[in-house]
């Protein structure tokens, strides 16, 4: 379900969160579905259960999972919105940055070169 990149700069628990959001976006997980238990997911992904536990905690706090008792790790009705929100947040910051650059006189070519350089740097 979720692919992890052990060597990525992005922390594992973040990757797990993003992974769930991606699944909901693609429609593979729908509201009302139960996510696998911490133990099962940790076992499947071969990661420390603490890491999975943290991801689940934060997903619950963000409203991606249901927070009521008896309904733990259930994809909530707002999940799509949350997933969408995140994507939307990223989209909006990018848009703002690029618009500002273009308005400041940067060309698309320069922007693409910058992105390539950033790809090297941010790693």
């Amino acid at each position, binding site marked *: 379900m979720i692919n992890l990149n*052990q060597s990525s*700069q992005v922390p594992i628990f973040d990757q797990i969160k993003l992974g769930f959001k991606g699944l909901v976006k693609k429609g593979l997980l729908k509201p009302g579905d139960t996510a696998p238990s911490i133990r099962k997911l940790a076992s499947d992904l*071969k990661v420390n259960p603490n890491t999975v536990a943290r991801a689940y905690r934060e997903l619950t706090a963000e409203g991606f999972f249901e927070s009521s008792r008896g309904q733990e790790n259930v994809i909530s009705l707002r999940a799509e919105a949350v997933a969408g929100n995140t994507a939307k947040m990223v989209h909006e910051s990018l848009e703002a940055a690029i618009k500002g650059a273009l308005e400041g006189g940067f060309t698309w070519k320069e922007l693409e070169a910058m992105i390539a350089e950033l790809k090297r740097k941010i790693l």
Partner: protein
Amino acid sequence: MNKNILEIKDLRKAFGRREVLKGLSLSCAPGEVIGILGRNGTGKTTLFNILLDLTAADSGGVEILGLKPDGSGKLRGLIGYVPEKPAFHPFMTVREVLEFRAAFFPLWNMGKAEELCRKLELDLAAKTGRLSKGGIAKLAWIAAVAHNPALLLLDEPTSGLDYLVRDHILSGLISELAEGGKSIIVSNHRMGEMGGILDRVCLLKDGVIKADYTAEFVKTEAFRVSARLEGGLPEAGPGVSALGGSGPLAELAVLGRANLERLKADPRFGQAEISPLDLDAAFKVMLGEREAL
């Protein structure tokens, strides 16, 4: 947090004139998962034997779960140990082995042992002399965790086992972690497969813990640098080692963000291609490193 469950200070052991451990220090906090990385014959087994109160140290302090090794073997009752080459009395069946062990470990949970046998598909009635290598490994694992020890000491728990059995063992490890309160010290020749569970990696070299990296570090600060260099390789600075390459194309491994920045500052690496180094490659580099970072 609470006191460390394991505290080793300046441990020394020599066999005749051959010094194996030369002042090794290591500590482990409750719930930590530590990987021991070291080449064969560098003292890993000796270290484990001393921790298990099987071999007497020459000098140095060892305290595990509040006990010191004193020859009485009490420590072994608190540690779940999977040896590198587990062995059992060939005439005993799996059930007999578990029942025999149960008598010696007061916290033994026979229900858990039977459940694990079922999950791992280990036949309780099979004679251990007839078990395959995978079966022996499963039995050794079950025997180690059935008494719910606070510390697990695993010596190459997956070596020589097929994918499926390895998977079982790793899942089992994660299960134990999920139950909480367990610390794990594991040595593995393919440490990469445990990348997801490790908290720290300790490099055992020259009879001491030469380097102690967090898992975070290994995942986020190990880089592969490919560059076109005229005039050969630069001198290896700290954290930089050659990975390969042919002709003008050089491939380097760099550990540590600071070292990477330094390299990037070098004009020859202006157009270098930088990508993250996978865990196994990173561990291999650490093993071969001549100096610490």
